[in-house]
């Protein structure tokens, strides 16, 4: 056990399953993030206009509008309704994240996730311990403040300083000094608060978590009885509080599905578990007891 403590997160999984399988969802996720970014960059870099706009609103191949519901909500609070295409894009995005989980936006789309993941990884490598006190509910307070503030000020308030849109817009339309804001987020996560930005402050993620409150696609721990308490999933998870009820709920009558809306469906817990405890599944498939191996078979996919 003491030897394992010095091991890197997921080292056991790499030994058991091989490097590729122990990084499967991470690789897929990075591919998703970079392909989405690449689609946006094709226009300004190579003149191939497949996607125009940015994450606030984009128009793909002149047929598919996509509107960020959080920005749209702030604009509506300020007293302005989007035009037809904007509303259609809003509906598409809402339905999509309603199904796959709101915070899929955070882990599979958002460019800041790459920044904060890097900070989290470096924090772990350097071994920076201790975190300043900042509740995970802070983001919901900020979310509420930005909506009320937009209504009061008549300005799309969070967009004045939103690091997410600043980074994405900066990459596509010209960065300017926006990199300083991104750097601040990186340093904040590295030195001040572990997983501070995405896990505690960002109202964009908080908003998307509300959209995905009842989303069917969830991470589940059907083989939780096989858990050997290595803690790797807790270490690697950006929202570790979401795991405990599902993983340790066997005796308390809690099913194996991670139901917290703040699970980002990033799948890193699936990667780093050497016992293959976790898998993607549906929220309905949530039996109270998972002791029987027979149930496990039905859980895969």
């Amino acid at each position, binding site marked *: 056990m003491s030897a394992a403590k010095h091991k890197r997160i997921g080292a056991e999984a790499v030994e058991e399953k091989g490097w590729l399988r122990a990084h499967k969802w991470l690789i897929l996720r990075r591919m998703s993030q970079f392909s989405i970014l690449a689609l946006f960059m094709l226009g300004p870099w190579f003149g191939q206009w497949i996607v125009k*706009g940015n994450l606030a609103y984009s128009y793909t191949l002149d047929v598919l509008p996509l509107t960020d519901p959080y*920005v749209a909500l702030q604009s509506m609070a300020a007293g*302005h309704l989007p035009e037809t295409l904007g509303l259609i894009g809003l509906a598409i995005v809402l339905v999509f994240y309603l199904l796959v989980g709101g915070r899929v936006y955070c882990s599979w789309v958002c460019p800041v996730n790459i920044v904060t993941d890097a900070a989290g990884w470096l924090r772990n490598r350097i071994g920076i311990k201790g975190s300043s006190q900042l509740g995970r509910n802070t983001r919901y307070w900020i979310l509420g403040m930005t909506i009320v503030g937009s209504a009061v000020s008549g*300005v799309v308030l969070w*967009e*004045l300083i939103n690091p997410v849109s*600043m980074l994405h817009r900066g990459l596509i339309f010209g960065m300017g000094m926006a990199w300083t804001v991104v750097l601040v987020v990186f340093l904040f996560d590295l030195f001040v608060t572990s997983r501070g930005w995405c896990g505690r402050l960002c109202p964009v993620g908080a908003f998307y978590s509300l959209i995905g409150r009842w989303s069917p696609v969830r991470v589940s721990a059907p083989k939780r009885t096989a858990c050997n308490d290595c803690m790797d999933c807790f270490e690697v998870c950006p929202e570790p509080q979401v795991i405990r009820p599902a993983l340790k709920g066997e005796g308390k009558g809690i099913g194996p599905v991670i139901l917290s809306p703040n699970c980002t469906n990033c799948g890193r817990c699936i990667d780093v578990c050497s016992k293959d405890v976790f898998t993607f599944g549906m929220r309905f498939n949530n039996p109270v007891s998972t002791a029987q191996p027979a149930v496990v078979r039905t859980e895969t996919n």
Partner: protein
Amino acid sequence: MTEKTPKSGAARRQFIFDSAKMVCGMGMLGLGLGLYAKQSKALPALALRPPGALPEDDFLGACIRCGMCVRDCPYNTLELAKPETPVATGTPFFNARNIPCEMCEDIPCIKACPTGALDHSLTDINKAKMGVAVLIDHETCLNFLGLRCDVCYRVCPVIDKAITLDMVPNARTGRHAMFLPTVHSEHCTGCGKCEKSCVLEEAAIRILPPKLAKGELGKHYRLGWDEKSKAGKSLIDESKMVDLPDRVPEGAVLPGHYDPASGQTEAMRGMPGSQAGAIPSLPPGLGGKP
């Protein structure tokens, strides 16, 4: 709710303290953001919004900073404000001296806008009001110096309506004319082509927000000549008007001089002096024709 056990009391206290902490924190953050938002509404005078943009107060609530207008502008006129630009971050603007608006007839920037930030009911680009051209420096404008530069007038897409050349005598030489570029704000769209093409090192004609460029008459002001043309006749009985003869130097001929008391009335208004005749009734003692 009504339990009075010490434990629930402590929990309630903690809950209230935690909430108070958050409310105060959000109050501070919100206040900071709100003040920043208020500042960001102060658009610099030379930053122009795309055609059809709502007034700045509304624009910052409607624009979602997607940059679609920037993408669909065929002339790369527009850009999105970077954090260090003194324009609300991420919102589209242009600087006329860099690249002016070419006033596309189909207005693609408005069509691309997914919100009401650019008013989709604006379909005639000639009705756009991005600003108003102001010939701001009479000391350096070449036409004011007596030359025939005329460039701002020539490039104006609404030539002879938005900018006219008004001829006045050149008092300096005493024998030339000056052709003064004169902006008529009701026709000017604020496209900025005049500012872009001004040949000076610093443009003498600039696009300013209407708020800065325009004066405003008192609401109760009436223009006599407008009222007269509306009524079809003079609103006063000119024959009963008490008017003293105008004193003019001996022998002077004033073109189109209007002086009812001296018998020069409506019919002579606007006529050249020779037709209107010399001053017909001079005060006693000054008489005599030239």
